């Protein structure tokens, strides 16, 4: 059963990651792909605090989240003051630089990785309890982001994303909104990182690099940007697909290339065939779709 538990936990974690990433890149329109580094910061802070100072794990996970939040604000404030595109460069620089730095710090395991991270819940209540914890937090994250984006704050984000100049003319501070959203999204990723660390008990700097960035980005794009359920579906599909393939009992000479082509193939397919993702965001396609759909259903009702 461990296998199913691991998959469920990874699905839960990636739902959190993809949803919070969609908040940043989709809802708020901030171009940054450095999301995994905040996941890493949360993971490392939580692991080190609980391992070295024996801090209770729920508290250390929370500290990891706060650490990621503060770190993201640190990157965002100077980068956003210049202009939006600089955030992309600054955040990638921050991500790759921090990974390189982590490789040379032997206190946190260096390039060889951090081992013997204390586990949480599993010993007392079994692995099921951790699955429940992660899935509950995943649902909570999705609901929180839905609440955030569909309320007045969401309307504010949409207004800023669509026309920053007009938004500023209304007397609103665009930079403050951007920094806040970036920090919230990154803080959530940090908490996911803590959850990862205490279940898998091993962290390596390289696993939080650009490969993971592209994986999370693919989840958001495939699922559907700027929707509540899009990133959720993207995370589930992209976590399950590679696993399902292994059950076809293919020889390794086929299995390998197939796994490798899966991500690339999906991205290409969606770019050409369905750029809006599995679930299209309502505001983009509203005119055409609503009329078409309404007409259809009326006709069907009559016949």
């Amino acid at each position: 059963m461990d296998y199913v538990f691991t998959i469920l936990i990874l699905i839960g974690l990636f739902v959190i990651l993809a949803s919070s990433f969609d908040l940043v890149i989709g809802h708020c329109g901030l171009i940054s792909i450095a999301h995994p580094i905040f996941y890493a910061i949360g993971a490392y802070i939580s692991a080190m605090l609980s391992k070295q100072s024996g801090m209770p794990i729920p508290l250390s996970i929370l500290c990891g989240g706060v650490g990621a939040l503060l770190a993201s604000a640190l990157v965002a404030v100077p980068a956003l003051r210049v202009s939006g595109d600089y955030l992309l460069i600054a955040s990638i620089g921050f991500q790759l630089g921090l990974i390189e730095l982590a490789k040379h710090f032997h206190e946190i395991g260096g390039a060889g990785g951090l081992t013997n991270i204390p586990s949480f819940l599993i010993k007392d209540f079994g692995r099921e309890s951790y699955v429940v914890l992660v899935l509950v937090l995943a649902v909570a994250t999705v609901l929180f982001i839905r609440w955030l984006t569909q309320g007045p704050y969401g309307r504010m984000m949409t207004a800023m994303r669509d026309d920053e100049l007009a938004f500023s003319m209304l007397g609103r501070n665009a930079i403050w909104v951007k920094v806040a959203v970036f920090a919230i999204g990154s803080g959530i990723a940090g908490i996911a990182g803590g959850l990862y660390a205490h279940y898998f008990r091993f962290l390596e700097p390289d696993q939080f690099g650009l490969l993971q960035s592209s994986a999370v980005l693919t989840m958001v794009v495939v699922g559907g940007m700027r929707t509540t359920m899009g990133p959720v579906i993207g995370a589930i599909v992209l976590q399950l697909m590679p696993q399902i393939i292994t059950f076809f009992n293919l020889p390794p000479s086929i299995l390998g290339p197939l796994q490798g082509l899966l991500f690339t193939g999906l991205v290409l397919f969606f770019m050409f065939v369905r750029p809006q993702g599995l679930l299209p965001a309502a505001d983009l396609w509203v005119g055409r779709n609503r009329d078409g759909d309404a007409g259809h259903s009326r006709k069907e009702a009559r016949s």
Partner: protein
Amino acid sequence: MTKQWGLKSTVGLALALALSTGAMAQQTSYKFGLAMPLTGGQATYGNDQVKAAEWAVDEINKKGGINGKKLEMIVLDTQADPQVGIQSVNRMISVDKVAVFVTAWSGVVKAVAPIANDNKVVELSVGANSPDISQLGDYVYTTFPLADVDIRAVANYSAKDMGKKKAAVLFINNETGIGSATVYRDTFTKAGGQVVAYEAYDQKATDFTGPLLKIRAANPEIIHLQGLVAESPQVIAQARQLGITVPITSYSGIYNQKLIEQLGAAAENVIATSLAPGVEDSPLVKDYVDRWVKDVGRAPNGLPYTQYLYDAPALIAAVFTSLDKKGITPTGENFRKEMLAIKSFDLPLTGKITFSEDHTVNKPVYLVEVKNGKWTKKAVVGQ
């Protein structure tokens, strides 16, 4: 909405599980897992190692398997990535119910160690050489000598047998580079030599003139280079261009045909190590390499590593055969006990292996040197 999608994912998982139970039903075979990078940056090595293991399993089954029962190998991809490795190993243990699995690449070996220990399933690390692998827990063993074995042999050989008094150490600034460079420095100093230069270069560097000039100024009699397969030829080429002609030693990573192809004459006087017997040492290895050339059309990438991978199924088969004879259920716990009870195994391509108390193995180190454009055997150290 949430409910609907929850349902869908549950159905998907149920389907996945249903597919797998079909394979679990039969009890007439013995299974083990192999988790290797089939995709990603390390795939060129991973795929060749998997091929070697596949040949070995075929060979074992042709010769009657495990007392007439089939030996089955479950191969899954790790991408040499800890997280993917965890998923693969979890699958092998939960779905395929393996009692033992083979894996490599230090990051993956370390990441899956808690799973092996928690589930009481034996993890055999075959090819990773990070020294802390020996301390990963009761169920983690290596059949591959860890980093310090060959570095120590090279340092001792340089100081004692080659009579070098002044050495320079040039290493890549990462975990393995720093670790191995320290081992070399300490061993060489202990053997009566003196380390006159100790220089590091950055992981992504392409120009090594700075550290090389410092080394040239120190005027060493021998240089030890501790780099990766990727940039080591560049380092050697630049050293030779700067007029540094002293012998350069390194480790098993640079022992491949490509080095000579890339460097040509500059490769002369480069000494590498190999932790497995070469073509000249054993007729079985010669047959094995000939088979590669015949079936695949080239020599394997990282020959010594594939030799170890070829031998892993033989070791596993030996333990299973012994368990089968005694009628003991092949659980991970029993496998571990039986493996430690047998203790010494005679393997076709890498020779004898003995599991020691501290979860390491000791092997002789083969030194090879480039002479007239060919890797030639120089010495055998240890054992």
